[in-house]
């Protein structure tokens, strides 16, 4: 069974996943079967955890999450059923005989892996990210605020490197928040995957919440309060609509722990090309980081 290690977590998949090949690990002996297919009796889906509509695999789809003894089952409208073993260690499509389509891979590498990572206390920030002097800066914001544009611009500048385009997994490592760059960025081609060649863990230095401003405004970094920083984490972690009560409680715990490690900034971001060098300068000069030195 192919094994991969995205975001520092080992997963087994019933079939190879091309997008995860850069993070493949050598297959050891297949241990116990961690997912028992016979646990799902017929069309019975016990313990509905959540039922929510969201943007999944290029369309608005209903996603139903079910919890059973042998793991989680995600039923995605017009796509199929996908499973996650109890602690997230094995994920795949429900019918193993069926060949995976592009849509299946987008779902497995989207909501399914996001939920599997959350079960391992790894939280997927909906963020782009770039690195300067080995410190990662994550850019959060609503769709259309310019997260990808800003990270892509920075990554072309001297001393900067792209870390994530759309999803940045993060986790607590003792009293530090780590960014985990080994994660497929589905909107980028395989040849441009930013995580390849980067360490598995990097300190998350800044958290910047982008706020769209008028084009005539000057870019500015405004320090956010601890409560605003918690809100930034709470509001920008992907997949929360699929979380059960236990995961939501852990999500809250992570957000408050992470926020306690430092300060986030609101980045007033006017949408004009000339603002980008000014933002770069601001970020390079900022003396206080997200993680404590």
């Amino acid at each position, binding site marked *: 069974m192919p094994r991969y290690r995205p975001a520092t977590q080992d997963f087994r998949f019933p079939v190879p996943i091309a997008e995860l090949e850069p993070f493949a690990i050598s297959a050891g002996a297949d241990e116990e079967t961690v997912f028992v297919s016979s646990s799902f009796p017929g069309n019975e889906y016990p313990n509905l955890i959540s039922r929510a509509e969201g943007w999944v695999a290029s369309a608005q789809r209903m996603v139903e999450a079910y919890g059973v003894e042998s793991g989680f089952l995600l039923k995605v409208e017009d796509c199929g059923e996908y499973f996650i073993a109890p602690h997230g260690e094995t994920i795949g499509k429900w019918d193993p005989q069926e060949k995976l389509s592009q849509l299946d891979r987008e779902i497995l590498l989207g909501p399914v892996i996001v939920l599997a990572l959350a079960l391992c206390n790894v939280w997927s920030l909906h963020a782009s990210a770039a690195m300067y002097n080995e410190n990662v800066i994550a850019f959060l914001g609503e769709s259309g605020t310019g997260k990808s544009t800003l990270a892509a611009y920075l990554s072309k500048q001297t001393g900067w490197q792209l870390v994530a385009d759309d999803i940045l997994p993060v986790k607590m490592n003792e009293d530090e928040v780590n960014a985990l760059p080994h994660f497929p960025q589905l909107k980028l081609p395989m040849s441009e995957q930013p995580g390849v060649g980067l360490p598995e863990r990097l300190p998350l230095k800044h958290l910047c919440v982008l706020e769209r401003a008028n084009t005539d405004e000057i870019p500015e970094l405004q320090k956010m309060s601890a*409560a605003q920083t918690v*809100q930034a984490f*709470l509001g920008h972690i992907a997949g929360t609509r699929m979380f059960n*009560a236990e995961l939501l409680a852990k999500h*809250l715990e992570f957000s*408050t722990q992470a926020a306690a490690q430092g300060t986030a900034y609101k980045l007033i971001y006017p949408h004009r090309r000339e603002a980008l060098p000014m933002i770069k300068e601001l970020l390079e000069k900022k003396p206080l980081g997200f993680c404590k030195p």
Partner: protein
Amino acid sequence: MLTLASAIRIPTYVSFSVVGEDAFLLNTQTNKYYGLEQVGTRLWQLLNENNSLQSAHQILIKEYEIGPAELENDLLELVAHLMENGLVELVEA
């Protein structure tokens, strides 16, 4: 009817976290988050220690410069709001 004599408790399905002067509450039955600011957070902490709204009222009068009647109104309004969202419940006598 909710009065200062009412006993209030935080249900087990509510998780919360205090960050500085703010508190974040999570109702795991509805999967909704809520935020409390300074005085609300202090009230929450007091209710978490002791179910008595009366006792919380007496402590808050000493901690904040506010008249008893005004504080009573504010507390009852806040607690009613918390109850509406399933974040606290009345303890039956």
